[in-house]
C-alpha cells in the first residue's frame, strides 16, 4: 500500500477546495439550523443556483464575470424567498420537505434536455472561469510545503475560499453577539415567547434563511471555479446531507465548528476512501469487496456516522447539548 500518497492526499484534503466549498455550505446551514432552528434540506439548490447563475451568465450569454457573480447572488436570494414564504410559518418538517423537493426541482431543470441551450443538460457548463484566473496574482508554479502543494490555479481558488470563510465566520461571530443573534437563538428555543415580545418571527426566520443561503452560495462559486465547470448532479441531495453531517460533527451553533467539521469530515473521508481503495486494489478483501464497491462504502460510513452522532453525541465535537436546535417544531 502506498501510504505516502494516502498521507499527502489526506493532508491536502484538510484545506482543499472540497473542504472550502463544504465549509461555506455548512456555515450557511449552521446559521439556519444551528442558530435559527430552520431545517433547510435544500442547501445544494442554493449552491447550484449560484454556480449556475455564474456559469450561465458567462458561458451562455457571454456577459462579464462580475455580473455573473451578482446574478448568482440575486438568484440565491430569490430562491430563499420562494422557499421561505410558503413554509416558514409552518412546522419544521414542512420546510424540510419543501426544501428537499425544491433542490430536486432545481437539479432536474438544470439537467433537462428542454433547457439544454441554457443550462447545458447533464454535461453542465464550462468556460466561465477565465476572468477569475486572469486576475490570479500567483505566477505559474506550485505552492506548498514539501510534497503537499497545489498548482497556481488551485492556490488562487483556495486563497479566495479561505478569505471568504474567514469573513463569513467573522460575520457570524459579530451577528450572534448582537441583539439580532440573541433574537435568533430565542426563536430557536421558543418561537411563541419571542412573538409575544412583539418580534416579527417570520421576518427573522426569513433573514436567517437568506443569509444562510447567501453564505452557502459562496461555496457554490468556489465549487464551480475550482472545477472550472458545473454539472447538475454535483448538486444532488447527498451534498446537503454531507453538509448537515459536517455541521453536526463540528457541533451546531458554534462559529468555527462548521469549518473544523468540514476539515475533519474530508480528512476522514479521503483517508478512509483512499485506504480502502488501495486495500481493495492490493486484494486485501479478496473477492469480497471490489474496487468499484469501495465508493459506496464511503457513503455508507457517512450515513452510519450521521446516525451514530445524533444518537450518542448530538452536540458534536464542540457543541453544547443545551444549545442544539433539535427540539424545534
Amino acid at each position: 500500500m502506498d501510504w505516502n500518497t494516502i498521507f499527502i492526499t489526506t493532508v491536502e484534503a484538510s484545506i482543499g477546495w472540497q473542504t472550502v466549498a463544504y465549509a461555506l455550505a455548512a456555515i450557511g446551514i449552521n446559521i439556519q439550523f444551528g442558530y435559527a432552528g430552520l431545517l433547510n434540506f435544500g442547501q445544494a439548490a442554493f449552491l447550484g443556483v449560484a454556480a449556475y447563475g455564474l456559469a450561465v451568465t458567462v458561458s451562455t450569454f457571454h456577459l462579464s464575470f462580475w455580473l455573473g457573480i451578482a446574478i448568482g447572488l440575486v438568484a440565491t436570494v430569490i430562491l430563499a424567498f420562494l422557499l421561505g414564504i410558503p413554509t416558514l410559518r409552518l412546522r419544521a418538517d414542512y420546510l424540510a420537505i419543501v426544501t428537499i423537493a425544491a433542490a430536486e426541482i432545481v437539479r432536474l431543470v438544470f439537467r433537462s434536455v428542454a433547457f439544454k441551450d441554457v443550462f447545458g443538460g447533464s454535461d453542465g457548463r464550462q468556460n466561465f472561469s477565465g476572468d477569475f484566473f486572469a486576475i490570479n496574482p500567483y505566477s505559474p508554479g506550485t505552492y506548498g510545503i514539501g510534497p503537499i502543494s497545489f498548482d497556481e490555479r488551485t492556490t488562487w481558488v483556495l486563497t479566495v475560499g479561505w478569505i471568504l470563510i474567514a469573513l463569513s465566520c467573522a460575520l457570524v461571530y459579530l451577528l450572534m453577539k448582537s441583539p439580532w443573534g440573541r433574537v435568533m437563538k430565542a426563536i430557536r428555543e421558543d418561537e411563541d415567547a419571542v412573538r409575544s415580545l412583539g418580534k416579527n418571527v417570520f421576518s427573522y426566520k426569513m433573514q436567517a434563511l437568506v443569509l444562510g443561503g447567501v453564505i452557502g452560495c459562496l461555496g457554490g462559486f468556489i465549487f464551480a471555479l475550482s472545477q472550472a465547470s458545473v454539472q447538475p448532479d454535483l448538486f444532488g441531495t447527498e451534498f446537503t446531507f454531507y453538509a448537515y453531517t459536517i455541521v453536526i460533527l463540528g457541533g451546531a451553533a458554534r462559529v468555527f465548528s462548521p469549518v473544523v467539521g468540514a476539515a475533519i469530515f474530508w480528512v476522514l473521508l479521503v483517508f478512509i476512501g483512499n485506504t480502502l481503495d488501495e486495500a481493495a486494489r492490493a486484494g486485501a478483501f479478496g473477492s469480497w469487496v471490489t474496487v468499484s464497491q469501495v465508493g459506496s462504502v464511503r457513503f455508507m460510513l457517512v450515513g452510519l456516522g450521521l446516525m451514530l452522532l445524533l444518537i450518542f453525541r448530538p452536540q458534536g465535537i464542540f457543541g453544547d447539548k443545551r444549545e442544539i436546535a433539535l427540539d424545534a417544531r
Partner: protein
Amino acid sequence: MCRNGGATHPAMTQLEGAPLRRAVIAFTAFLGGLVLLLASPAWAEGEALKGTLQNQGQPVNGVKISVVAEDGNPVAAVTTGADGTWEVPVPKAGKFKVTLDQTTLPSGVALKFKDKGTLDVQVYEGNQRNVLFALVPAGQQGSGNTSGESASSFWDRVAQLTFEGFNLGLIIALAAMGLSLVFGTTGLTNFAHGELLTLGAMAAYLFNAVMGVPLILAAVIAVVIGGGLGYLQDRFFWGQLRKRGSSLVAMMIISIGLALFLRYVFLFLFGGESRPFADYNAQPGVQVGPISAAPKNFIAMAIELAVLVIVGLALLKTRTGKAARAVADNPALAASSGINVERVIRIIWTVGGAIAALAGIMLGLAQNINYQMGFQILLLVFAGVTLGGLGTAFGALVGSLVVGLFIQLSTLVVPTELKTVGALLVLILVMLFRPQGILGRRERIG
C-alpha cells in the same frame, strides 16, 4: 414535541401574510412564464434528432444510439435516459443515419424489425425530428416493412396517461399509507421510508431472479420480510430512540442517515445498474379500449387497489384500526383511554413495512429495479402525503392518486423528463394555499 405550539393568531397571519402571498403568486406566475419563454426556443430552433424508446409503454433506458451525417462524419452517440428519451442536436439540416446499437438493448427487448437498426432520416431547417424505433418483447420480431408510426388521437393519449397515472398513483399511495400512519402516530417524518420500497423490490429480485422462485411467491416472501423488518426497525431502533427521548428533529436527521446508509448498502450489494425481475418482464401488450398495456399492469393495479381497500377497511372497522386512528389523532388522549400506544405503533410499522415492500415490488414491475428507486419516489410520496394532509391515512390515498395522475397527464404539455418537477411544484403551491392538505386539519400545521 408540542403539536399545537407555534400556532399563529389567524388574524396576524392574515395581516402579515396577504401581501407577501400575493407577491409570491405573482412571482411564481412570472417564473412560469419565463420557463415557457426559455423552453419554447429549444423546441422551435436548432435542428435535432430525438425520440423515446418504449417497450410495451414502458421506457427503455441505457440503449446506445449514434448519429452519423450523410458524409460519414459521426455527429454524436447518446444513451437513452431513465425515461427512455434521447436527443442529439445536429449542426445543420440534412440527411442523417441513426443507428440503434442492438447489443445495448436490455434482455427480453428486441427491435421489431431486425433490419431496421439503422434509419435514414431527413432533418429540415429548424426541425426537431422524432425518430421511432419499434421495440417488442424478444421473440416477437417481424421482418416486414410496415411503418412503426401510429397516429393516436389526443383523447387516446389522455386515456392512456390517465391509466398510467392511476397505476403510479396507486403505487405512491401504498408507500404513502405507511409513511403517513407512522407520521401520524409517532410524529416522525421518515426519510428512510423509500428504502423500505427498495428493500422489498430487492428481496423479491433476490428470490425471483437469483434463486429462481416464481415472482408471485417471491413477492409474498418479500412482503413478509418487509413487514418483519418494519417490526424489527421499530422494536430495536425507533422504539428505543423514542424511549431515550430523542427529539423529532433528531430522529428525522437520523432517518436521513439511515436512508443514506441503506441506499449505499443496496448499491454495494446490487450494483449501479437497473435490472428487471425474471418473470413477466416482456409481456405482449393487450388493447382495452384506448388503453394498451401489459396484462401484468392490470393485475398489479388490482392487487394495489385490493390492498388499499383492505387496509382502509381495517382502519375503519377493526379495533386495532380504530386504535391506530385514535393514536394518530392524539397519542396522549389515546393512551389515557387505555389504548396500548406502543403496541399500535409497532403494528403500524409492521403493516407499513409490508405494504411499502409491496409498493417496491410493484414499482419494480412497472420500471426496473435499481438502488435509487425508493429515494426517487420518496419525494413523490411526500408530495402525495402533504397534498392529502400529513398524518391522515385517507388523505395520503387521495393525495397520492392526484399526484400520480398529475405527473402522467402533465406530459401532455411538459417534456416527459420534467414531469416530476410539475408534481414537486404542486407540493410547494399546496403549502401556499392549503398547507393542511385536502383532508388535513388546520391545527396540525402551526
